[in-house]
C-alpha cells in the first residue's frame, strides 16, 4: 500500500479556522505525535477536510494529531493524537 500525493494542505492553512477556537496562532506551535514521537511545527501537519470536519495528521506517520468538527454553535475537539502542544506566547 503506497501513499501518493494527496489533497491535503499545511497546518498553516487551518490556522485561521483554529484561531476561532484557540485564540492562539497555532502554526508556530510545536507538536509531538503521540504515535511515532515526531516533533514538528503544527504548520508541518497535513490538513485534510475543513468543513465540517478538519483533521491534522502527523507528517511522519499520518496519525491524527488533531480533529476538529464545527457546527453552528458547537465545536468538538479531539487532541488524543498529541503528546504535547507547545504554543509560543509573547509577553507584554
Amino acid at each position, binding site marked *: *500500500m503506497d501513499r501518493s500525493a494527496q489533497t491535503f494542505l499545511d497546518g498553516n492553512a487551518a490556522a485561521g479556522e483554529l484561531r476561532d477556537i484557540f485564540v492562539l496562532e497555532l502554526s508556530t506551535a510545536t507538536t509531538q505525535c503521540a504515535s511515532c514521537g515526531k516533533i514538528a511545527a503544527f504548520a508541518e501537519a497535513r490538513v485534510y477536510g475543513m468543513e*465540517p470536519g478538519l483533521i491534522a495528521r502527523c507528517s511522519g506517520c499520518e496519525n491524527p494529531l488533531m480533529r476538529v468538527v464545527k*457546527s453552528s454553535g458547537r465545536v468538538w475537539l479531539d487532541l488524543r493524537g498529541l503528546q504535547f502542544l507547545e504554543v509560543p506566547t509573547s509577553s507584554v
Partner: protein
Amino acid sequence: MGLISRGFTSKRDTTETKLPPGQYLTKDFPVLSAGPTPRVSLDTWAFSIANEAGESKQWDWKSFRALPSEEFTVDIHCVTRWSKFDTAWEGVSLDTLLQDVKTSAGFALAHSYGDYTTNVPLADLRDGKAWIVFKYAGKELAPEHGGPARLLIPHLYLWKSAKWVRGISLMTSDKPGFWESLGYNNYGDPWREQRYWGDV
C-alpha cells in the same frame, strides 16, 4: 450575517426540488477524504465480514468479483452540502455478502484501509439498501473515490459510505466510528438533516 459583498451570489443550485434540506446540486464529483488515499493492489485486497462471535468470512478480489453484482443508479448526498443525482454504480449487494453470515447483531462497523471507520445499524445494510461497489459510471472505481471498492449506502450521508472498505464487524452494541465519535450524527439521514450529535 457578514457584510454583503456587492454582486456576489452563490453559484450553488439549491432550487432543485429533489434535494434534501440544506443541500446544493453539483455536476462534479468532489473528492473528500480524512486522510491519504491508500493504493491497494488487487493482489492483496481482501474484504471480510466478522460476526459478533468473531467468526469471519473473507473474500479476495477474485472471489469477490465472482459474486453476482448489480448495476444501479442513485442520488448521493455529502454532509459538506453537495448532492449529486443519478450516479451509476456496479457492486455486490450486502444482502449477498451477508447471506451465509450467522448473526443476531444489531450494529455494524465498517473499516477501511487507512484508519477510517463508520458505524451503521445492520438493518441499513440489508434489503437492497447497501452495496460494496467497484465500478462508477462504467469504469473501475478510481482510488480517490474509494477504489478498488467502497461501501455505498446512498440513503445516508456519504461519510457512511466508507471508501477503501476492507471489512465490516457486526456487533451487539453500537460503536461510533471515526467521525461519529466526534460530533457527526450517529445515523446521518440527509432527509432529516442529521448532520451533528443531537440532530433528530
